[in-house]
C-alpha cells in the first residue's frame, strides 16, 4: 500500500481531529474534504464506543433530514448541530467571509455563486470551521469586499455560534472571539511562519504551542482509503476518482 500522504488526505485528517467532541456534524454543498473528514471521524468514534451523527446534504444516504431543505437551518438554529464548515472567496482577519464576489457590490467585478446558508449557520453552530484550500493574499484578505456573514457580532445580537478554526493548505488557525483575531496553531511541514506572514493578507497572532500538522497514522489512512473513500464516491464521484482513483 502506498503510504505517501496526499495533500487532500492531510486536510481530511486535520479536519477529523477537530470533530472528536461532536455528536452531530453537518456538511453543506460542494464540500468533499469536509464530508470525508466527518465520515472518518464517525468511523473512528465507533472504536471509542461513541455515536457521531454525520449529515451530508448532497447525499441521499447520509442526509438525515426529512423535513425538506429548510431542516438543516432549523436543526442548526435549535442547537442540534455541533460543527459545520464554511468556505469563502475571501476570508478576512476578523473572520468575515465573502461568498458573493470581488469588487464593490452591487457593481461587482467577479461574481461567485452566492452566500448559501452562511448568514444563518455562522450565527448558530457552535463550531464553524472555515475551510479554504488556497492560502494566498487573494483569498485571505485584510477586509472582504462583501460580508456574506460576519465573523463577530454586536453584543445584543443572538449568536451562540461562530468561527472556531480556519484550515488552509498551509496552516491551521484558531479564532479568538474576544481579540477578533486569528492565531496560528499548526503549520504544514513545508511551511515557515515567516512565509505564512507573507502569503496571508491579514495580521494574525502566533500560538505559543505552535506545531506541525501531523500526518495521519497508518491506521487512519487505512480507514480513510478502505472505508471512507467508497462512501465519498457515492456523493462526490469526481473527487473520489481524482484522489483515490475509484
Amino acid at each position, binding site marked *: 500500500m502506498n503510504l505517501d500522504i496526499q495533500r487532500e488526505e492531510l486536510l481530511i485528517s486535520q479536519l477529523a481531529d477537530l470533530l472528536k467532541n461532536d455528536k452531530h456534524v453537518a456538511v453543506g454543498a460542494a464540500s468533499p474534504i469536509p464530508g470525508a473528514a466527518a465520515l472518518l471521524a464517525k468511523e473512528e468514534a465507533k472504536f471509542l464506543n461513541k455515536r457521531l451523527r454525520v449529515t451530508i446534504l448532497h447525499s*441521499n444516504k447520509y442526509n438525515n433530514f426529512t423535513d425538506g431543505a429548510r431542516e438543516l437551518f432549523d436543526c442548526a438554529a435549535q442547537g442540534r448541530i455541533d460543527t459545520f464548515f464554511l468556505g469563502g472567496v475571501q476570508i478576512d482577519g476578523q473572520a468575515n467571509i465573502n461568498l458573493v464576489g470581488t469588487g464593490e457590490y452591487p457593481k461587482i467585478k467577479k*461574481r*461567485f455563486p*452566492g*452566500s*448559501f446558508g452562511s448568514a444563518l449557520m455562522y450565527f448558530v453552530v457552535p463550531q464553524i470551521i472555515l475551510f479554504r484550500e488556497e492560502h494566498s493574499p487573494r483569498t485571505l484578505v485584510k477586509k472582504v469586499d462583501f460580508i456574506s456573514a460576519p465573523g463577530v457580532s454586536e453584543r445584543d445580537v*443572538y449568536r451562540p455560534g461562530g468561527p472556531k478554526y480556519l484550515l488552509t493548505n498551509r496552516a491551521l488557525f484558531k479564532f479568538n472571539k474576544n481579540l477578533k483575531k486569528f492565531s496560528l496553531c499548526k503549520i504544514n511541514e513545508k511551511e515557515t511562519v515567516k512565509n505564512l506572514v507573507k502569503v496571508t493578507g491579514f495580521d494574525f497572532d502566533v500560538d505559543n504551542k505552535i506545531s506541525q500538522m501531523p500526518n495521519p497514522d497508518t491506521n487512519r489512512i487505512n480507514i480513510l482509503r478502505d472505508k471512507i473513500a467508497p462512501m465519498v464516491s457515492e456523493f462526490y464521484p469526481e473527487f473520489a476518482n481524482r484522489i483515490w482513483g475509484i
Partner: protein
Amino acid sequence: MKSFDELSLKEIVDEVQDGFILGIPADYSGVPMKFTKELIKKGVKNLKLYCLPLTTIQGDMLIGSGCVSEIEAAAVTLGEFGMAPRFSEAVENGKILIKDSTCPALHAQLQATEKSVPFMPLRGVIGSDIQKHRKDWHVIENPMRSSGVREEPVLLLPAVQLDILVFHAPCSDRNGNIQIGRRRELATLAHASKKVFVTVEKVLDIDFFEDELSAATCLPALYVNGISIVKNGAWPCALPGVYSSDNEEIKKYSLAAKTKEGFGEYMRYCLK
C-alpha cells in the same frame, strides 16, 4: 369527469406570462428542464426567478437566453462543474438584478405566505452585507416579554407569493396527487404559489391516500393546477430516487457556456 387536468407541455408554458415570479426548485428537488427549454423557445421575458434556495443549469440557461430580469437566490452555481457562467456574466455586466439572499431567508419568506402572515422573523443575518442591501427587509427590537432576549434585534422578512411554480416529479397518482418524497420544500413552494404545474415521468393507477405511508410521500392534488407527462423531464439534472444527473452533459454545458457564442451554439443544439 377526470379527476385532474392533464395538460400538454405547451399548455403549461402558455401559463407563464412575461414578468411573472417563477418558483425555481433546487437541483435536488426535481428541476423541470424540458419545460425550461420550451419556455426559452417561447421567448418569455422579464421573469423574476425565486430560487429555493439555489439554481444550477436551469437558472443559468434562462438568464443566458435573456428571459430573466431579476433573480432572488442564495446561490447560482453548477456545483462540481464550477460557476454558472451566464449568471456571472449577466451580473458583472448589470444585465439582471440579483437580490442576494441566504437559504433560510428564502424558506422563511415562503413560509410567511404559506401561513398568510405579512412577515416571518429570522435570527442570524444581521450585520451582513446581504441584510444591508435588502431594502425589503426590516429589523425590529424584540417586543416580546415572554420569549427571546428583551430588545434583541430581530430581522423580519416579507411574505413572498409566487405567480407560478413548475417542478418535475417521479409520478402522480390517478387523482393528481404528486409524489415528492422527503423533498418537502416543494410543498412549501406550492403552498406559496398562485398556480402550480408539475411535469411527471408517469401517472400511476393508484391512490396515494389509500395507505397512510404513501399518503405521507405526496403533495395533495388540491395545490396542483395541471400535470403533464414528460419522460426524462429533469435531464440532464437528477431526479432524486429515480435517476442521477448526466454529469457529462452538464460538464459540456459548463464549458460551452463560458462564452456567449459557445452558449448560443449549445442552445441551438439543445432546443432542436
